[in-house]
């Protein structure tokens, strides 16, 4: 079986700071993989490298078996049509209305007419529990949780094969976080997508993951099924999932 996404020895540094130090990662079709790790361990850089927003210094990245490491232009746009992404701060376009945000990828990316795109947008909003009455609001008029939902609706609007979730529950209260987790689980099931999430919220990770990988100092130091996370035998993983200040992981105050 061809992996949906594969990273081989991906390295990336910013100036003297090594962020990714040889990341090897495989995401199988239909799988939900969650990458856990502390702040600044390179989780976002991993996702941005796959999308081509950042270019790795070394290593290769494959999507559906095709190399996309240095892909540009039309080929890259075509590759990106497979993806949807929910950003940490939702990253909604504040100059557009809610429905225009949701339909953006359909109208701009795929050249769909506005009217059918709006209908799809309303349907996707309903899927994340938002009524048609929010469609004409501007994103600034929504609460943080609602913005996340709109971001989710935008990510799934074009029925992507692969969805990325960047810290989907960060900044939400525990109840809203659980609602978002449920929405992620359900929408992924409905759409049948492969997902890659990054988070440091273990509650969320346990809920949405089939498999968990832990990133530490630019390397994947452990990965396995979500059921095995408590018996990983890895002191780094144990410290992280229990949130202990004491342990092998030392917080670097100076980046």
């Amino acid at each position, binding site marked *: 079986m061809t992996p949906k996404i594969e990273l081989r020895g991906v390295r990336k540094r910013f100036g003297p700071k090594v962020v990714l130090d040889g990341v090897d990662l495989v995401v199988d079709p239909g799988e939900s993989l969650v990458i856990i790790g502390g702040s600044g361990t390179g989780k976002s850089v991993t996702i941005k490298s796959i999308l081509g927003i950042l270019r790795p210094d070394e290593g290769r990245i494959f999507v559906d078996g095709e190399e996309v490491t240095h892909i540009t232009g039309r080929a890259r*746009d075509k590759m990106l049509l497979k993806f949807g992404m929910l*950003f940490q701060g939702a*990253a909604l*376009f504040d100059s557009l209305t809610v429905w225009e945000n949701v339909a953006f990828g359909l109208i*701009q990316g795929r050249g769909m007419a506005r009217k059918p795109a709006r209908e799809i947008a309303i349907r996707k909003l309903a899927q994340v529990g938002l009524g048609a009455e929010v469609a004409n609001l501007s994103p600034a008029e929504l609460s943080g949780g609602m913005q996340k939902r709109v971001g989710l609706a935008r990510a799934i609007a074009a029925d992507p094969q692969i969805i*990325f979730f960047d810290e989907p529950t960060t900044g939400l209260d525990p109840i809203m976080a659980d609602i978002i987790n449920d929405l992620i689980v359900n929408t992924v099931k409905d759409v049948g997508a492969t997902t890659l999430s990054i988070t440091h919220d273990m509650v969320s990770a346990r809920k949405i993951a089939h498999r968990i990988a832990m990133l530490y100092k630019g390397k994947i130091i452990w990965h396995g099924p979500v059921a095995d996370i408590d018996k990983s035998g890895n002191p780094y993983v144990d410290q992280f999932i229990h949130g202990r200040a004491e342990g092998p992981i030392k917080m670097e105050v100076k980046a």
Partner: protein
Amino acid sequence: MNIFAPIGRAFLLLLARIGSLTMFTWQAVSSVVRPPVYGYHILQQMMRIGYNSLPVVGLTAFFTGGALALQIYLGGNRYGAEAIVPQIVVLGITRELGPVIAGLMVAGRVSAAIAAEIGTMRVTEQIDALTTLATNPVKYLVVPRLIAAVVTMPILVAIADSIGVFGGYVVSTQTLGFSGGIYLKNTVDFMKTEDVVSGLYKAATFGFIIALMGCYNGFHSRGGAQGVGAATTNAVVSSSILILAANYLLTSLLFAK
């Protein structure tokens, strides 16, 4: 400590900046000719860059024209050449002051607004979001602003020229005792097409600089509100300096004899 290290570091940083600006410019200019074309966005930006700048550009042009008339009258007085006011006003406004004043005012207004808007989009990941929605951010954000600025600046400057000359006319006829008919006749007789056209070339160039510096600084802003603030300042400062430098270059090229 080696005293050459900081100098070298600053020099390398300067080279890196020039390199990234050159690449950004190339990306933007080469995207202009490639589809898709965002027609609605171009119109929207023309409204914001051009139409909304009319009051501020008109007022500054009016006062500049007025002050110019006064100075030429006083200066000309020293050797009995007061009558030359209309000719020098129209020459000064169309060739230099119209484009430069309009350019600087629009640089303050528009390149700051562009840098703040795009910079906020950068730090809130909206630009990355565009990419994931298979939309090229340079084409979607930069190209409409570049086209709109290059097209509207000459129109703005043409209006600024007329208002500037009118400012000189008002001051001359109301306080300096010129007859309105003679003033206008002298203005029109003296003015050549190339005076106005050279100013319009300058205007288009300044429009390009304004939009480019706004977009470039916005795109490369880092780290929250402070980063966006710095991007805005850099956009205004760099576009103003580049406008004045480009103005000198263009003057020496356009009027080379």
